[in-house]
């Protein structure tokens, strides 16, 4: 069912740092959050919270919940003591209404360089990985349109 924008849920996003620093699967993080939420608040709050792992960047992750329950989620995250059976701690760092704001707060990833570029008059976010791969993300709602760039464009980037 497609709702009008004014009727859609409002979410809050929390940037977390996971210790020890390692690469984690979003599924494992979700299970740890779900277990902790169930243990602390039970089925009712867990059902109302809608916790979800949006993105994982190495030891950092962005977790989503419904607006108004972000403090409950922060408590839940702080109470996590293990992920996939290994001792771990999840430290909530910041809460925001958008993913983009939180992504800007993630300490620089040494493997990737990022920037902005305008190609054919359109603004793009550029991510250049160490292996030479270049990802372009066009602003707007149509993220999945493939773009092909030439050698000359690559030199400009």
């Amino acid at each position, binding site marked *: 069912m497609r709702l009008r924008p004014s009727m859609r849920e409002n979410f809050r996003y929390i940037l977390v740092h996971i210790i020890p620093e390692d690469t984690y699967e979003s599924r494992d993080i979700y299970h740890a959050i779900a277990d902790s939420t169930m*243990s602390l608040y039970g089925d009712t709050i867990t059902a109302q919270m809608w916790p979800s792992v949006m993105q994982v960047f190495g030891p950092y992750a962005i977790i989503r919940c419904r607006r108004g329950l972000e*403090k409950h989620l922060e*408590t839940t995250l*702080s*109470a996590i*003591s293990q992920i996939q059976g290994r001792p771990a701690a999840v*430290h909530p760092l910041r809460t925001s209404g958008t993913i983009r704001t939180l992504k800007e707060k993630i300490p620089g990833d040494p493997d990737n360089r990022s920037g902005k570029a305008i190609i054919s008059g359109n603004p793009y976010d550029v991510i250049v990985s160490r292996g030479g791969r270049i990802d372009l993300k066009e602003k707007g709602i149509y993220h999945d349109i493939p773009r092909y760039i030439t050698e000359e464009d690559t030199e400009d980037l």
Partner: protein
Amino acid sequence: MYVQAGDAGYNRSALTTSGVHVLMDVQNSPKDGFDRYCAQLAADCEVGVGLSVRPLIELIGVARQKMIRKYEEIFTLQNRYEFPLVLSSHASDITHLKSPREMVRLFSMVWEDEELLMASLGTIHQIKNRKGPVMEV
């Protein structure tokens, strides 16, 4: 100087001993081990009562419920007698370390007054610099 809590008589004796800064693990003392008289003594002598966040994380189920209830009793006494509370992570590993924000969030499960919780993170300084009848040994 941190002192491990015991029964009521031991706690009263510890609280009135000069040089004692914090009484720890009050939640593990026997029933009525830390009563209102102990709370009054702690307030008069400015001896902190230490609460650790680790039981709230590591215990589950009924054990955690009991711990939350015991912590709530201590917070209730603190609200009445205003003795210094010392909140700590009791970390013995890097994964046990908690930021002030996390400490406040976890203790807010027990007591909702976040101003008191934030203030309790800085009471060690107050206890270390106390002036009054209790003297350093």
